[in-house]
């Protein structure tokens, strides 16, 4: 094993943060949907996978990464809108387990639809030309694309925060996640808000898929472990909390990449151990409210 130097640790730390941004985006999508609709989207990993495939597909079609970065999440969000309208909506008021089970079934269907469309082997993905190469960070060279991941996530999180905190529609969403009944009484079509939030959440899952595609193998099963990992992030950060999703996402990314450096065999396991520790000490997660676990 090569010697572990401070600069190697720093590089691995930034790698972890870059990985963590993908987790953070996934958890944000999951938390948005949960906070609003009280639905855990078990198809979240599948939406991530669909986003990755569409991203690679549109990149090949148009040759323009930025275009693919916009179109793929929109299409993924469109599938999400369809799923909410025709599959999830009939289940409101029938117990919290039913939407969960339904989205689990949906993930199976999405996986097989992608297999039928793009083949079981998956698609070859590569870093877009404009974002290739490495940047000197002072302690070593770091891939430009991973720095782009961090920047892109920062932009998305900032935009989302401005949308939720500073716009009228964001106000309705925040009010609706506090008390949907009151918002409905005030004359807001809350069903429509739920619909759009589900679309937004799945679009963000798609976006994280597009962003992650150049850094990992794009195949129909890629979303299966991602679902479990995004659950870890949500539990650690606190369900329904956006700051929690960001902080926990980055923490989980850093824990993963540090374990990958120091004890590679335990890398996959480390984040689950982190979750178990959080459950023991603070079951509601970093930013979750106590008693919100009901």
């Amino acid at each position, binding site marked *: 094993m090569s010697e572990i130097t401070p600069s190697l640790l720093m590089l691995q730390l930034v790698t972890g943060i870059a990985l963590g941004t993908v987790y953070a985006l996934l958890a944000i999508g999951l938390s948005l949907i949960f906070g609003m609709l009280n639905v*855990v989207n078990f198809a979240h990993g599948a939406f991530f996978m669909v986003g990755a495939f569409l991203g690679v597909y549109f990149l090949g079609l148009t040759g323009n990464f930025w275009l693919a970065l916009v179109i793929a999440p929109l299409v993924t969000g469109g599938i999400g809108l369809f799923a909410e309208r025709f599959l999830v909506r009939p289940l409101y008021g029938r117990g919290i387990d039913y939407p969960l089970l339904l989205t689990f079934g949906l*993930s*199976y*269907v999405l996986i097989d639809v992608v297999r039928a469309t793009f083949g079981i082997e998956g698609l070859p993905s590569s870093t877009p030309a404009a974002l290739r190469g490495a940047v000197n960070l002072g302690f070593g060279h770091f891939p430009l694309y991973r720095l782009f991941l961090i920047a892109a996530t920062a932009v998305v999180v900032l935009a989302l925060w401005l949308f939720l905190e500073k716009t009228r529609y964001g106000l309705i969403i925040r009010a609706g996640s506090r008390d949907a009944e009151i918002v409905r009484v005030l004359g807001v079509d809350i069903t429509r808000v739920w619909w759009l939030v589900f679309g937004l959440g799945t679009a963000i899952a798609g976006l994280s898929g597009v962003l992650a595609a150049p850094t990992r193998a794009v195949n129909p099963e890629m979303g299966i472990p991602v679902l*479990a990992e995004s*659950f870890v992030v949500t539990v650690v950060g606190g369900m329904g909390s956006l700051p929690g999703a960001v902080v926990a996402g980055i923490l989980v990314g850093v824990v993963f990449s540090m374990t990958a450096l120091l004890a590679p065999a335990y890398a996959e*396991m480390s984040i689950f151990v982190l979750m178990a520790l959080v459950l023991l000490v603070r*079951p509601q997660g970093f930013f979750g409210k106590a008693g919100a*676990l009901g």
Partner: protein
Amino acid sequence: MSLENLVNLGARYRVASVLLFLLAFPWLMPYEALAVNILIFGLFAVGFNLVFGYTGMLSFGHASFLGVGSYLTGIAMVHFGLHWLAAIVVGVLASLLAGLVVGYLAIRTRGIYFSMVTLALGQVIYYLFYKAERWTGGENGLRGIKAEVIDLFGFRIDFLNPMTKYYVIWFFVALAMWLVSRILASPFGAVIEAIRENEKRTAACGYDVARAKLLIFVISAGVCGLAGSLRALHLSVVPVDSLHYLQSGQAVMMCLLGGMGTFFGPFVGAGVFLYLEDVVTTLTKYWMGAVGLLFMALVLFFPRGIWGTLVHQLQRRGLLQVERP
């Protein structure tokens, strides 16, 4: 005797009826291996149903207990040369322990969180066995499990004979079903159903909800572990996928398909599911998508499941007087 009386008699002696049916079951199936598979997964679904159907806790980590039962039975036989009877005990004890650890952590959360946490903890166990290649064979699974022949007063118990294998496994399933039935009919069984209906009220009535949840979780893990042990003997290998959360999802599907919270429903679900798999996979390679569609249709239109609907209809028409068949 009229049909109505027969139905009620069957419902009153539910364990006996189930076991009688399962005695004749291999002759209804196209081949014995499928019957054995249904028997094992039926038991797995019954164990899962204790937590999901009766206590109302949707676990997505029950593959862990199936897998731990399988692996520890296999490891005891392959690495330590234990007799298969002793190895079954090892497998069940290990899954009880796994159930205690996972349950202790998971019951700190409720509702949706419980599902997420059990899924994630199940993945820990998956990676643990995946990485311990020296003991578990890693990605290739554990191979080379051979059950010794027992000579019982001239009657040979040989697992190479599929019918013998079926009835040996039937015997263990019978024990487990009897135990499950006794637990459900006990005051403790009433407490877990009360938790499903209203957790706060149950706590207010003075029952220790956390302890009851943990206890039923551990019992359920043990039943699933027994199914896993038997599966290791049946397959003579342990595939690593048996620990994956998709396997837990299969238990959920079987329960839902048959009817959650019914005694025999999970068996019906396991039977229909595996029979369909057997037929559909010869017709199309998109079995996973077909399962997904079936599952969504069940959730949307048919949440009582096959057996659940039958029981419900019989009760509604007054043909079935037994309260909890």
